[in-house]
């Protein structure tokens, strides 16, 4: 156990940098985790409309009333320049002109004119407001004509259509046990803590573990140990045990830090799965540190590798930005990095991405695959030496 004890004596002198990382990380996470929870909610979009009625008929008046129920009607001077200015300054989204003869055209079923011919408008080309208003007006005209075709007089047809449009559309989020995880114990806000974990775990574990291993690998003390009665197998075993236990300690400290942010013991399957996810990633970070050290690089190079690889991977894999915001090209490259699968699993667990528990386990399996690859790489590199 002498090498094991030696490992932790050296660890004591290297742990400071890990503590610095932990404190900074928790300080950054605190406001992010405790920011106001954004609820998953739906509100119908309302437009700022200017309407100029040149028909002054019952039909035009009732159309205005119908539109006013859903949208905000803005009062402007009847001046084309002022209307255009208002649109430029986004005071109104859409200016609708109901031309003279609107009621007549609307009542005649043989008139093929649809909304874009029944009405005139001022609008920004290809804006969402145009799309919405076109849809709404088309639907309105089609429904009124359908009611008239059924034999209703215009006034009744308008009433029927108004009733049906008043009902609006009830939007409900589909929550399925199989398809998504909406776990109140593991909110997307708190998931931020776990989301950034790949960067911080790589940074801390590589920057703490690799210098310890480099110190133990220094030629002269290492030769002295090799000249002793400690067998090579025992030496390797003790080093691996030390690395594993140190990694678990670092991971546990982060998990305790997470509990401070969480406000107590983790709850719910999703949360514990996220904990397991972070544990797997901690082990990947540890084997990555051991793999780097097998190339006999210096401490400075280790720091550089951890920063470049940790930060690069975090940016590419969605630790700092949602994966949905990343381009397909980046995501394709990111798939060959373990953090991608970590973030994907975490996203599924927090409900940020669709997926099943099977998908989460699949992500864990891919992460373990990276662990095994790095382990094999380390063994091959060391056996060659």
């Amino acid at each position, binding site marked *: 156990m*002498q*090498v094991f*004890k*030696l490992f932790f*004596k*050296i660890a*004591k*002198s*290297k742990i400071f940098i890990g503590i610095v990382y932990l404190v900074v990380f928790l300080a950054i996470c605190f406001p992010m985790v405790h920011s106001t929870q954004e609820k998953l909610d739906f509100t119908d979009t309302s437009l700022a409309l200017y309407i100029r009625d040149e028909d002054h008929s019952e039909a035009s008046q009732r159309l205005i009333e119908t539109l006013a129920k859903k949208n905000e009607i803005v009062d402007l001077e009847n001046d084309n320049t002022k209307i255009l200015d208002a649109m430029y300054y986004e005071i109104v989204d859409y200016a609708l002109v109901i031309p003279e003869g609107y009621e007549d055209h609307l009542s005649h079923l043989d008139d093929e004119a649809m909304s874009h011919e029944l009405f005139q408008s001022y609008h920004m080309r290809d804006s969402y407001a145009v799309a919405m208003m076109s849809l709404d007006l088309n639907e309105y005209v089609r429904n009124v004509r359908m009611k008239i075709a059924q034999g209703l007089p215009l006034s009744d047809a308008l009433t029927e259509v108004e009733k049906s449009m008043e009902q609006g559309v009830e939007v409900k989020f589909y929550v399925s046990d199989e398809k998504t995880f909406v776990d109140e114990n593991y909110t997307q806000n708190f998931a931020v803590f776990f989301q950034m974990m790949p960067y911080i775990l790589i940074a801390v574990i590589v920057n703490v573990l690799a210098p310890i291993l480099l*110190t133990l690998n220094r*030629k*002269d*003390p290492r*030769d*002295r*140990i*090799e*000249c*002793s*009665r*400690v*067998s*090579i197998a025992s030496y390797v075993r003790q080093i691996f045990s030390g690395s594993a236990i140190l990694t678990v300690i670092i991971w546990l400290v982060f998990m305790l830090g997470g509990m401070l942010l969480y406000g107590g013991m983790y709850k719910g399957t999703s949360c514990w799965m996220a904990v397991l996810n972070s544990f797997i990633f901690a082990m990947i970070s540890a084997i990555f540190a051991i793999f780097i050290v097998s190339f006999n690089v210096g401490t400075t190079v280790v720091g550089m590798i951890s920063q470049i690889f940790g930060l690069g991977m975090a940016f590419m894999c969605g630790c700092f930005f949602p994966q949905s915001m990343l381009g397909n090209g980046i995501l394709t490259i990111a798939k060959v990095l373990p953090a991608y699968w970590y973030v994907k699993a975490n996203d599924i667990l927090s409900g940020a991405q669709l997926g099943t528990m099977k998908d989460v386990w699949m992500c864990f399996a891919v992460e373990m695959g990276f662990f095994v690859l790095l382990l094999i790489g380390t063994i091959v590199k060391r056996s060659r030496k």
Partner: protein
Amino acid sequence: MSNTVVKVENLVKKYKELTAVDQLNLEIKEGEVFGLLGPNGCGKTTTISCILSLLAFDEGKIEVFGKEMTPVSYDLKSMIGIVPQNMAVFDELNVYENVDCFCGMYIADQATRKQYVDEALDFVGLNDFRKFRPKKLSGGLARRLNIACGIAHKPKLIIFDEPTVAVDPQSRNKILEGIVDLNKQGATVIYTSHYMEEVEQICSRIVIMDHGKKIAEGTSDELKRTIKNTETIFIEMDEPAASLTEKMKTLANVSDVSWKEGKLVIACTGGRHNLIDIMEILQAEKVQFGRVWSELPTLNDVFLTITGKELRD
């Protein structure tokens, strides 16, 4: 002095095209302070590394305490202490922790280990520096720590690989005295160095190496007897007349006379009254001279005679 502690037979170690050790044979007896002398790069450290199984070798056989030495000969390794040329300690541990750590690689029992560590620190004179980190120690003290780490477990065979490189004279003497003490306490010592004075001072038997080969072996006196020159007399004076040097060359035991850097250098081979005979000639010729001194041959002279170059070249 009869048991063989280390036996090296026909050892060959190559680094690609370079043959670092070439058909080397060594036999080190129990209780010896065995010196391995040679210039830098002559193969001393490579030989030591092969003996310790730190390096695989190409040909030959190495036995330690009568058994073949292999990387897994842990029973043999437990009887060996190594003091390498470079500082083989951990800067992250203090003096006591370093000695305790390396002693712990051999001694499992904590109480025994504590006693051994205390004795080792006492032996090298580092008791007052127990809590110091190696980097806070002076060069000499750091070397002593290096030694303490190699001897704390009381090995039967201690290998010192150039332990006095870059050490001040006072610390060097302390280290050499310590090595002699360890030998007196029963340890067999292998001492490698390119400092001939040190080897001459402490080693009971010496092997001189050059280009990976053993070029001479014996005690200091035996080695010196192998060369023709037994005494060199130096006389400070102006450049002498050719007749004076010719006259001196006629003396029975004088083998060579030359004038170098303001000194007349007279090489003698045997004889007892060489200096008196030379002084008589100087007085007869009424030659003015300054200081006169005589030097006995050194291992450097042995090396020079065999290889044609200085040991420190």
